[in-house]
């Protein structure tokens, strides 16, 4: 009888030694997948070569892809070697080494399957690209239309960048302002709070394309001198700023709300006023926290500059569509897509860098 009611006599039964897990079945699956990816990749490479009339570049790329697809065989072979070793060790009664070998061999089989699965996706895309004698490739990636339109499209893309940059600066400032107004305390702040809430609700509800249409076409029609003389590009900036300030103010608000009330209490207890507390303690911390979601919204904003094409502003999409209708080929539009990709990816990496740097500095590295 145990001295304490917390400890029972009936303990768990001792486990019997677990046998090594099986390997062969997994290795065979890996082998089948490796064979499949090689076959499909060879098919894709042949289509690539045929489409480019045996051009040396296409042939080289095809060969490289096929060679890369062969890599799945290497861990697969290791898995089979491991499977044999497992059996031999088990026969000798070496249970623990056999378990270890089996675990490693299964891992190798998994690696092989991982490579094969990725290779199948690449090979599948390749086949899609050159299906129907290269119908996909010539619709989206035709070289000549891209060459012809490149100069004008990249020139027009500067308008997208300009609109995005100006809007982003405005959104950054106004969004914070709206967020702070929404958090004004007390009855005195109530009327302004209400206006900020109505603004956010309204402009998050209206589709950006509708705001652009109404602002860019509508404001000059009002006959108000200031808007009549304004360029359509600036009207577009106003429209995007109105839409995105509503979103970004919500991001800021979430950031401010995420700062623990004890920070505010600490600042106030030192005698800092409401505005000083906001400026020196809450906003700096909130801004650091919201940088990633803020960038998300900015990428959205950059992409939505393409919506200005509906308002006859000569940005990249509008210009590329003119080329598309002239050449009956979509490749200039794909070029615009490529430009957006090129400007977006570095920003994402830059923000990752900022976040890492901030974390490292705080941790003292």
């Amino acid at each position: 009888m145990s001295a304490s009611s917390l400890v029972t006599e009936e303990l768990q039964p001792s486990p019997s030694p677990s046998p090594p897990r099986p390997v062969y079945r997994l290795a065979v699956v890996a082998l089948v997948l490796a064979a499949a990816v090689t076959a499909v990749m060879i098919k894709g490479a042949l289509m690539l070569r045929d489409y480019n009339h045996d051009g040396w570049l296409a042939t080289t790329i095809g060969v490289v892809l096929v060679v890369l697809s062969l890599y799945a065989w290497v861990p697969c072979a290791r898995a089979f070697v491991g499977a044999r070793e497992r059996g031999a060790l088990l026969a000798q009664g070496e249970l623990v080494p056999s378990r270890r070998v089996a675990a490693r061999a299964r891992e190798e089989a998994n690696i092989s399957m991982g490579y094969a699965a990725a290779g199948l996706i690449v090979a599948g895309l390749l086949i899609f690209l050159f299906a129907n004698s290269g119908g996909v490739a010539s619709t989206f990636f035709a070289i000549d239309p891209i060459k012809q339109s490149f100069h004008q499209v990249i020139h027009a893309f500067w308008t997208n960048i300009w609109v995005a940059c100006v809007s982003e600066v405005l959104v950054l400032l106004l969004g914070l302002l709206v967020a702070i107004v929404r958090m004004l305390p007390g009855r005195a702040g109530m009327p302004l709070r209400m206006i900020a809430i109505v603004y956010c609700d309204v402009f998050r509800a209206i589709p950006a394309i509708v705001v652009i249409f109404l602002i860019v076409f509508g404001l000059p029609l009002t006959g108000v001198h200031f808007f009549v003389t304004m360029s359509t590009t600036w009207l577009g900036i106003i429209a995007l700023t109105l839409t995105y300030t509503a979103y970004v103010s919500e991001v800021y608000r979430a950031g401010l709300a995420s700062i623990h009330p004890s920070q505010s209490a600490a600042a106030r207890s030192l005698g800092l006023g409401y505005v000083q507390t906001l400026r020196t303690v809450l906003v700096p911390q909130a801004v650091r926290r919201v940088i990633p979601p803020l960038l998300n919204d900015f990428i959205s904003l950059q992409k939505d500059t393409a919506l200005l094409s509906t308002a006859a502003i000569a940005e990249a999409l509008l210009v590329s569509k003119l080329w598309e209708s002239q050449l009956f080929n979509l490749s200039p539009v794909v070029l615009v897509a490529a430009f957006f990709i090129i400007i977006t990816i570095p920003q994402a990496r830059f923000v990752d860098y900022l976040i890492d740097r901030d974390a490292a500095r705080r941790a003292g590295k």
Partner: protein
Amino acid sequence: MAFLEIDDVHKSYGHHEVLKGVTLNVERHEVVCLIGASGSGKSTLLRCVNALEEIQQGEIRIEGDTVTGAGVDLNALRRDVGIVFQSYNLFPHMSVLDNVMLAPIRVGGVNRRAALERAERLLESVGMQDKAKSYPDMLSGGQQQRVAIVRALAMQPRVMLLDEITAALDPELVGDVLEIVRELAHGGLTMLLATHEMGFAKEVASQVCFLDAGQILERGSAQQIFEDPQEPRTQQFLSRVVKSGRL
């Protein structure tokens, strides 16, 4: 007229009454310890003195001047009344030095050089001069709490409120922090502290108050409260503390 007078203070959150008429006088240079179970209202009382919580009834006076109710310059009050929290609450985006210098520069109107000099001197006196450029997340709890004490002291408050400042610390770090409080007590700083460190309370307190359910149930010298408590609730609380090995 006592230096700090807490007069029949009531505080509720909604229908839940946390303080049910607390009256307490603190003389200048006195160290008053508040003891009692969690939820007895110790922290709330301290936060009321600093006006971080609004009170519903009663009055708090510092040198005869009422500091509760409408029309009080809270920022001026808080310059006089420093508070240190259980969870340190340092500003994580500022270096140790900036944490200490923020209020003197922004609130006290001290110029940067004078604030820097004072901050460095204070940090040195708590053995934190080497960490002046560090950020709070790089410091141990004990180090953070020492910085938090210095941050409050940098405003040269006339009274300090310490809200269970060692409760979140590892046992071996408690001593360093208490040593600083001991020094402040010997230096004559008026302090009101909520604490679970009974041994320490016994040592520094000129007055010990036992709070129970939002009221001061028993008060007296440390010797009287710890060695000869009159109220059954106080006796019960202290016997539990002894059982848990903390006295």
